[in-house]
């Protein structure tokens, strides 16, 4: 019988929720890393027991944690238990937490400044890892999207990290600027068939590499953001999230600050598919595991009011790849609900009947075992949920 494991990062630790394929009864484990914000945790599809975690605090900085046994035990990959804690030269280890921007000449003119809130240039400063994306093929390879926006890669299970500096260095970096949440690279989408990588940055936009992360270009044509000086600029758009169905790597769905967008040519051209949504502001977006034209969003009232319309929490589903959206409300709060659903807090499982999951800033994690028709809370009272990922296990 299949199982699912829901990985939940919260403002005060991580939790692992497990159930069998029915997805009716749940076991809750945690908090792991109690008291620390856990921005993201994600399992490797090549080895489901391998889970990577970004534990980050304003006080004590960035810590990468890893489990090799499905979350039963954890370690910092740079200092695994039993190994010497120093190098042969006597220097201490601890590299797994070290994210240093590439400033070498060899890897191509890395930038040192980006645009600040007041329009001046500001130095790049590492703050935290927002998103960890394990390789689809190799459990030891993992990508990290960080604030201030950059992409890092580890090929040794998170022990050490190197920046893919071509992203910051491709030319538009000086025009990137922080959104309200900071200048973060929060979305990494890997093409299952090739070397292509998509990333999204707030507030810079979407970018694509066709060669595994060496060279990059902005892919924001068709986006329109009325809150920036040039609404159709090459960069500067506040992209909140991008999702792809693995069978159609050229089709992406985007929840932008405002607007739900779609591309069918790998980002070369976008078109709006907000259609009949009651508001097209929001953060999350995801695609059904088996139906590439079925898409989910959670509409949020506005950029000034980060909560559902009229106090009613709703998921909207389109079975037509956008434009025509259906309200899903069965089992969700009908009144007095003023939570938010953050950008990394929705995921789908790949069981025969696709499960959909999302977490809220009110600490609820909702699950639907029938593709969104009905919803139930798995937990109601966690700390504010920052991220939700799902593993479908045999």
């Amino acid at each position, binding site marked *: 019988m299949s199982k699912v494991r829901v990985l939940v990062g919260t403002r005060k630790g991580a939790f692992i929720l497990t159930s069998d394929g029915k997805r009716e009864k749940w076991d809750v484990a945690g908090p792991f890393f109690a*008291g620390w914000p856990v921005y993201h945790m994600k399992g490797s599809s090549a080895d489901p027991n391998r889970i990577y975690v970004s534990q980050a605090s*304003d*006080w004590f*900085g*960035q810590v990468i944690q890893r489990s090799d046994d499905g979350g039963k035990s954890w370690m910092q990959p740079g200092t695994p238990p039993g190994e010497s804690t120093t190098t042969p030269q006597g220097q*201490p*280890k601890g590299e797994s*937490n070290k*994210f240093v921007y590439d400033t070498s000449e060899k890897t191509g003119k890395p930038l040192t400044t980006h645009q600040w809130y007041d329009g001046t240039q500001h130095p790049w400063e590492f703050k935290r890892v927002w998103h960890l994306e394990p390789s689809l093929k190799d459990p030891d390879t993992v990508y990290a999207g960080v604030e201030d926006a950059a992409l890092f890669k580890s090929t040794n299970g998170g022990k050490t990290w190197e920046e893919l500096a071509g992203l910051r260095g491709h030319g538009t970096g000086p025009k990137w600027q922080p959104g309200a949440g900071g200048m973060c690279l929060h979305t990494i989408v890997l093409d299952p068939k090739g070397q292509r990588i998509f990333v999204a940055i707030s507030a810079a936009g979407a970018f694509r590499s066709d060669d595994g992360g060496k060279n990059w270009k902005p892919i924001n044509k068709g986006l329109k953001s009325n809150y920036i000086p040039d609404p159709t600029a090459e960069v500067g758009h506040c992209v909140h999230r991008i999702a792809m169905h693995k069978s159609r790597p050229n089709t992406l769905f985007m929840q932008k600050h405002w607007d739900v967008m779609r591309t069918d040519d790998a980002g070369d051209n976008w078109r709006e598919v907000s259609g009949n949504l009651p508001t097209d502001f929001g953060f999350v977006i995801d695609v059904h595991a088996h139906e590439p034209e079925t898409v989910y969003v959670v509409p949020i009232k506005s950029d000034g009011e980060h909560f559902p319309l009229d106090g009613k929490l709703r998921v909207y589903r389109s079975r037509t790849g956008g434009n025509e959206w259906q309200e899903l409300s069965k089992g969700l709060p009908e009144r007095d609900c003023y939570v938010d659903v953050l950008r990394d807090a929705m995921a789908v499982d790949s069981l025969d009947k696709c499960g959909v999951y999302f977490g809220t800033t009110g600490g609820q994690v909702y699950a639907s075992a029938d593709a969104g028709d009905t919803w139930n809370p798995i937990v109601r009272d966690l700390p504010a949920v920052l991220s939700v990922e799902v593993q479908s296990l045999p």
Partner: protein
Amino acid sequence: MITVVLPPHLRTLAHVSGDVELELAGAPTLRSLLDALEARYPMLQGTIRDHATLERRAYVRFFACEQDLSHEPLDAPLPAAVASGAEPFFIIGAIAGG
């Protein structure tokens, strides 16, 4: 022997349950204390001072002998009572946020 008191989150990270005792050669300074602490507990690298700049993280403070030593030069001698082990050296997370 110098006694270092870590904040609870860093004790958890370093897998220690109480105070940390460090033996430092020569006249101890803030720099030599932090170097020795990170050498013993490499998982604390980057949590007290920045990985790249080695600057103290903004919300981390150093106290000893009822003095705030957070802004003392890294190579200034630590108070004699800390060096002798009579008084502990506190690393604390600043009270900030909610």
